[in-house]
């Protein structure tokens, strides 16, 4: 068990929640950047063609989706680590 798990409960929960919020914010910024951000620039992006795919069209049809899936699995992975770090893991039940 790490030192963080031995903090007073209120302090430990506060720090755990802060770290969680930071992670959520970063992932939401990426989520926004791959889905909303390319939309106004789609015509410019379409001039870049990779393997037949105009990039602007590709971001909407597949590119952003791949990032979504990876993000969610990463969050699950990172939160499991965070839980363990603060001694809050479901596994220890």
């Amino acid at each position, binding site marked *: 068990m790490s030192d963080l798990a031995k903090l007073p409960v209120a302090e430990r*929960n506060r720090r*755990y*929640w802060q770290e*969680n919020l930071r992670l*959520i914010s970063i*992932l*939401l910024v990426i*989520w926004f950047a791959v*889905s*909303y951000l390319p*939309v*106004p620039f*789609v*015509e410019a992006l*379409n001039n870049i063609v*990779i*393997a*037949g*795919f*105009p990039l*602007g*069209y590709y971001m*909407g*049809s*597949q590119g*952003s*989706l*791949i990032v*979504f*899936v990876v*993000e*969610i*699995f990463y*969050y*699950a992975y990172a*939160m*499991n680590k965070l*839980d363990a770090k603060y001694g*809050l*893991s*479901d*596994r*220890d*039940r």
Partner: protein
Amino acid sequence: MSASAQSQSVFRNRMARYYGYFTIGFIGVSLLMLLLEVFAGLPTQVIGWIFLLLTMALYATIGILSRTKALDEYYVAGRNVPAVFNGMATGADWMSAASFISMAGTLWLLGYDGLAYIMGWTGGYVLLALLFAPYLRKFGQYTIPDFVGARFGGNTARVVAAICAIIVSLTYVTAQVVGVGLIMQRFVGVDYTIGVILGLSGVLVCSFLGGMKAVTWTQVAQYIILIIAYLIPVTALSIQLTGFPLPQLSYGQALQRIQVLEQEQGLSRTTESPVVPGKFITSGYIPPFNEGLSNAAAVDAVRQINTQFGWSLTPPAAQAIPDAKKPELGDWRGTPWNFLALMACLMLGTAGLPHILIRFYTVPSVRESRLSVGWSLFFIFLLYFTAPAYAAFSRWQILENVVGKQISELPGWTKTWASNGLIVIRDLKAVDGVEIGKEPGWVKNLINAKTITIEDANGNGKIDLGPWEDIGDGKARAGEISGAATFLTKARVDGILQLNELGRATADGIDGDLVVLSTPDIAGLPFTIGALIAAGGLAAALSTADGLLVVIASAIAHDIYFRTINPKASLNTRIMLGKSMIVVAAVIAALLAIPRLALIAQMVAWAFSMAAATFFPVVLLGIFWKRANGPGAIAGMIGGLGVTLFYMFNNYMNPAFNVLGISHLGSGIFGLPVAIILIVVVSLLTKEPSKETQELVENLRNPITDDEGMTKMIDKVATAK
């Protein structure tokens, strides 16, 4: 590893084995059908029936095996569904007849603009994973109104939430039932109404007997069927056209060909906006934002309601933007606002739909709930990642081999589909020499609508086509047919198929649903593959209907009856009421589905905007802002819904009412900020939530699953009030 974790992993492995056998068995049966069809000439009607009966019997068997009288199993599948299976169940729950049949068609018709649906219906899962799922699992009760009631102290908030859940789910389930009826009609050849009843009884056997437990394990099987059915035809087409078995990677070639063919056929054009000088709009599959606004759907919907029910509502005056006569209304084509608003509403609505949210009550722990959202999106992704390939291959083939060809030289499958009435080739050359009075239905429709007139000048009783000529006054003539020059163009009588001449009995333009349904025919695959697609579409519609019926039944039996009217009700009464409400909801959905109103599909699209402006902000602030209180939540839900409905109704009836060219489908974008502001302001103006409520929120954020502790805490909050 603890004992419970060990028994969980044993359970997971056992289920994985069962569903592994099931998948192999299903593929085996399909192959057997294929062989029987190709070598023994098994009639197509028989194949359709075998697929239908086999899959329905399977769902019923799972329902019977999972029958239960335990409340926990009935409402939340005993909370022991492993993450990966909950992912499949969520996938089937989520992907409706619309995703399975219509998604690719929407992309086919709208090109880039259709991608708002692809990103919207997947991006919402990121919000679900980051903001909702772990906390709702920690909360661990039965329904979403349960959460609203416990968090926002009291029955008013709970009942408002329950009514919202019922309205949203009932429109949604009605659309599924319509889908079931249509698929049955098309592939088994039964009457639409009989199809509805047959399909619903399949749903009922399952959800009535076993509630959420049966629904969950049926949905897993339905997911497997639907994804196999979706991937096979397009993979075969990809191999034929590109020699590469992964359509998801190879359709770039199709996109390139589409652009070339559109150039050649004059479908890709850059034209100056009729109302904004100097602004150019490019049409075509790849260029974005070229849809205008119109109220044609509202006009049709009102007319249809009038004929169905014998009412005499006045339809709104037809209106479309851009309108050269009213330049002050602007031309919103070429701007991304409508796309962005629609995508945002679909994402936020996805994260706020009750039948998806409750799926995360069924996993064993908070930890599993996070992983489960990942699996859910992965399984959904398999279909959504493939839909653009379906659309692109189909559009390529139609532009290459169908459009621009002489009607007499069309590929065989188009003739089959035309003879079944699934597509109509609307070139008037087809009626040259046909006896007057024996015209096909679509020509009769045109005559009735006075778009064209036929005058038997030579008195031989037949329609004789002549050379096309402009006769002035906005009219044109081709031999004995004359009509409005806007419709009766030269191309309309030349015997060469144009893209817009590929249409339906009532209108030009293909029905988007045909894209998925016709792919096996385009690829020249046997009928068995078509029957497989029907089974997949049916699985998609039934699984979604199942999940929704559980939401409706629990909102009535649990939230309204048990929690609000009679908290002393016995366990037995609660189960019995839950079961009877499933039947009631199914019957109401069937009655709503039988008139087949176009308005229903529209209402499903609206459900996302409504959920985005009600459930989303309330649940979000409930978890992330301790100061949010009951009056704030109620004000937010009502205000958000009110603003959304106001914009929706006004823009639907009259597109001149718009902000930045955003259509009624994206109206939640206006309701959401209003809801958030109301929750914040009203909460700050009224009393802080009780200490117990704040402790409850604090506890939601602690990831250690503790269902008993949580239930005690919720009771404490309720009594402290």
